């Protein structure tokens, strides 16, 4: 390899992010050049699509090739600050895809489309850059910066909604609590740095076992990092912001937050906490702490969802519950010698969960005629008579979230709990399946309203083509990928084991 190529190697590895950034700047620049005249929303969305396509295209054509040629499971860059591996590439595809869906939903949505759409687009794409950086980071400082990058953009886009009260409240809540969490996270990093002398994740994890026994500050630092992550992925007891923020944010933004943000944060969490055998340390009983966090998260999420009347809040609690299930994946990946099965289960679950959630929020968006519309569950009454396709798609999504076969939701739970049972976590799996029984009650409630009542539903907007297409397509995918889940599972497993 010649010297010149080597010099370019590192920038090439972050080429997707650069492309995405350039694409994000174009609409806002054009707007300025045109004397602060807003672009057509469609044009802005097209620019965003260029960015996302360019980013995923270069990931596919260049970066994954480099990884394959290196013959290693992963490659690092910038003195080991970022890492490219199969899992990361896979999740970044997912994030680009979810970003594209978010743009489509935003284009349709009344609360964000309009005066400041170029700014909105800029911030959304930058938030996505942050997420991909979270996925790639191999150094706690980069992780921190990436999380901040992602979150700061989100704080603003939540507030950008045209809706005047709830969204502002949500943004402020998320900002204040998020800042606390970030501060704790940073504080934790400083403790870890103090005891290890490095912020590089591989260095930390390789020293972890010794330090655990000798240095209590290191343990405190790690627990603070857990708290920081627990906030982002809304794990009990750091979940309280979730329903308010999910409800207040414009629905497309909620979609992005509940899927892509979670996917990125979970992968970073997986990276930090599964490579060092933390779970095997008997003194600290870290395993027990994590198990109880998982169990409480799913139980709290599911039980609280039972009583919700607002559909968006119900979905927010369901999202908390799903975080609990995903924790099961983290635990089984971190505990056993067999990292692969747990990680594969988790990644598959993230994929399935994202697909289902996108569809459900698309349904919520279909009902939002004004930015202030609030959709209660009984607003769905009789929907199956008025809009059979919409009702059927939503019913499939809900059944999938509840884990009824042969949908993707069932198979993702099957893989996840199989991985857990493989490591001997029978008790944890038992809690998981009991929780999915509890969840059946609230997931079926909208189905009852849609199919078993003959009242008039709230008005839906039939001309929102993209939103409707997202809803129907996700339902179709859920059934198709459910029955053919093996092929998808193989792809994920391969990316976890061999890098690609």
């Amino acid at each position, binding site marked *: 390899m010649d010297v010149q190529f080597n010099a370019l190697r590192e920038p090439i590895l972050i080429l997707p992010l650069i492309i995405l950034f350039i694409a994000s700047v174009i609409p806002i620049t054009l707007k300025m050049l045109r004397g602060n005249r807003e672009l057509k929303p469609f044009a802005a969305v097209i620019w965003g699509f260029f960015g996302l396509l360019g980013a995923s295209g270069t990931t596919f054509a260049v970066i994954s090739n480099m990884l394959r040629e290196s013959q290693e499971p992963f490659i690092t860059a910038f003195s080991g600050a970022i890492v490219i591996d199969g899992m990361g590439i896979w999740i970044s595809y997912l994030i680009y895809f979810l970003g594209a869906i978010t743009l489509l939903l935003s284009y349709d949505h009344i609360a964000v489309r309009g005066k400041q759409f170029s700014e909105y687009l800029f911030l959304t794409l930058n938030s996505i850059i942050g997420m991909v950086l979270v996925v790639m980071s191999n150094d706690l400082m980069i992780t921190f910066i990436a999380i901040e990058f992602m979150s700061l953009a989100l704080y603003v886009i939540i507030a950008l909604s045209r809706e005047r009260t709830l969204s502002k409240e949500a943004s402020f809540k998320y900002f204040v609590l998020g800042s606390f969490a970030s501060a704790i996270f940073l504080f934790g990093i400083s403790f870890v740095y103090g005891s290890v002398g490095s912020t590089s994740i591989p260095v930390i994890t390789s020293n972890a076992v010794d330090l655990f026994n000798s240095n209590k500050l290191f343990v405190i630092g790690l627990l603070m990092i857990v708290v920081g992550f627990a906030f982002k992925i809304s794990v009990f007891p750091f979940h309280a912001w979730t329903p308010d923020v999910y409800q207040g944010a414009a629905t497309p933004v909620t979609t992005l937050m509940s899927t892509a943000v979670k996917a990125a944060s979970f992968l970073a969490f997986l990276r930090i906490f599964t490579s060092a055998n933390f779970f095997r340390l008997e003194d600290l009983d870290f395993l027990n702490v994590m198990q109880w966090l998982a169990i409480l998260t799913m139980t709290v999420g599911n039980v609280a969802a039972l009583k919700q009347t607002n559909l968006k809040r119900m979905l927010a609690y369901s999202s908390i519950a799903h975080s609990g299930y995903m924790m099961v994946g983290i635990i089984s990946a971190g505990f056993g010698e067999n990292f692969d099965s747990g990680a594969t289960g988790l990644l598959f679950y993230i994929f399935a969960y994202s697909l289902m959630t996108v569809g459900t929020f698309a349904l919520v968006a279909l009902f939002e005629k004004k930015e202030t519309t609030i959709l209660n569950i009984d607003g769905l009454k009789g929907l199956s008579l008025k809009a059979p396709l919409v009702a059927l798609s939503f019913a499939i999504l809900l*059944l999938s979230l509840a884990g009824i076969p042969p949908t993707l939701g069932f198979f993702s739970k099957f893989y996840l709990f199989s991985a857990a049972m493989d490591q001997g976590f029978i008790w944890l799996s038992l809690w998981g399946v009991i929780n999915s029984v509890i969840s059946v009650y609230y997931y079926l409630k909208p189905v009852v309203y849609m199919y078993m009542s003959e009242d008039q539903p709230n008005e839906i907007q039939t001309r929102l083509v993209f939103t409707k297409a997202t809803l129907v397509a996700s339902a179709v995918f859920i059934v198709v990928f459910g029955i053919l889940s093996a092929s998808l599972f193989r792809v994920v497993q391969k990316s976890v084991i061999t890098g690609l």
Partner: protein
Amino acid sequence: MGLLSLIVFLPLLFAVIIALMPSDKTVRLSSLVFATLHFVISLGLLFKFDSSSAAIQLAEQIPWIPEIGVTYFVGIDGLSLWLVILSTFLTPLIILGSWESITKRVKFFHLNLFLLQTAMLGSFLALDAILFYVFFELSLVPMYFIVGIWGGARRIYATMKFFIFTMAGSVLMLLGIIYLIFQVDAQGGALSANVLDFYRLNIPFIANDFLNPQTLLFFAFAIAFAIKVPMFPVHTWLPDAHVEAPTAGSVVLAAVMLKMGTYGFLRFVIPMFPDAAAHWAWLFMLLGVVGIIYGALVAMVQPDMKKLVAYSSVSHMGYVIIGLFALNAYGVTGGVYQMLNHGISTGGLFLLVGMIYDRTHSREIVKYGGLAKILPIYTILFFIITFSSIAVPMTNGFVGEFLILLGTFQANPVYGIFAATGVVFGAVYMLWMCKKIFFGTEGELMNQTKGVLKDLSLREIVVMAPLVVMVFWMGLFPDHFLNWSKPSLDYLVNNRENYELTLKDANQNSQTKTALIVEKDEEEGETL
């Protein structure tokens, strides 16, 4: 695609076709034609099935999720043969039976019926545990819609209860299945969810101790199936679901869906966990007997005809359970026969109750009386089915209950004595209901509807006629049916401890192996 896959997935194809049809009338008509066609195709099984073999026949196996050892594996043997034919036999009758009573969302109704059919047939034919679980759970969804959309006043409560109860039971089974998949790996094989591999597993068992693998797995599976059957004390969803369901829903539920539970005991619980099954048989016999007597006593005081039939269903399923857990040839054979009988008799009763309800919109027993004079054909049919239900000799019910009681006395006379009292109770409540409805002074409803009430139409007679034929056919010539299942049942009873099924196919080798097994059977086994 083999015959079995065709039988399983044909209803799904029908569902897609009728989804594209415009009018209710064509939907009804073509559903009826499709369902009849499906029944005829399923009779093809009788030609292809070798009734002298206990092996799995007509098997089809394709990898599905090779990473976890899940395959698409269907096959048939003596245990599942008649259940498959029972469900295809009843579907056209159900469609014809709800010809006039289902008036809203006709297309969606038939869609659900066909989807349910696929799910039920799939679970009877699946020989891969995960595939079985998929079909087992899938069957909840269409039934949930059938009860919830076309049901009575409290339909939503009933359908939610039904869904959550059944699901709560089956998730434990899912964990059990996952555990077994890894056990197959640990005991020398690769990961596999194949039921035949599960049979070969050696699962540790410690008597008188609850926390050992085999006992826990036994209960994980048994609870799932016990809820489905349903056994006392987890039967409470059944009366609600039955009373609120439309006639078609009740018939499918009673005649076929409950059999998924008893079939589960036969296919999974008893052969896979033989030690635990033998050790805990007393518990299931006890609960079965309690269910028989409790169901009968509660049925006696029901003011509502449908609820009475629903509780009689609890009582009758108790017989099936004690028959199976008697773990001897008489009991198991009787249990299997009683599964079919219950399908015919309770299905028939629900259809008949539905027919009178369509006319009067009341199911309250006290409001009737003196119906025999006005509706003679109805009365005759009702009595025939009632006789089958209370096990009068010459009807099918007699054969089943007699065999079960024989088996129970052989296993444990105490249970036998109590179970026998249930036969008397059964006669009491059924005949009491018949007396109140058909004879005596005319009830208030009769006065109101005088002259308007018409006897059964040709359509309704056509619906009931096959059931009546079956009642006597199965009652007079039980061998015509039992001979097909006998090798499988004998093999199960005699080789419970080391149950192993082979595949029967063109392969010479495996055929000789099967033949050997059958021979061995005949030497060792006590024949009926």
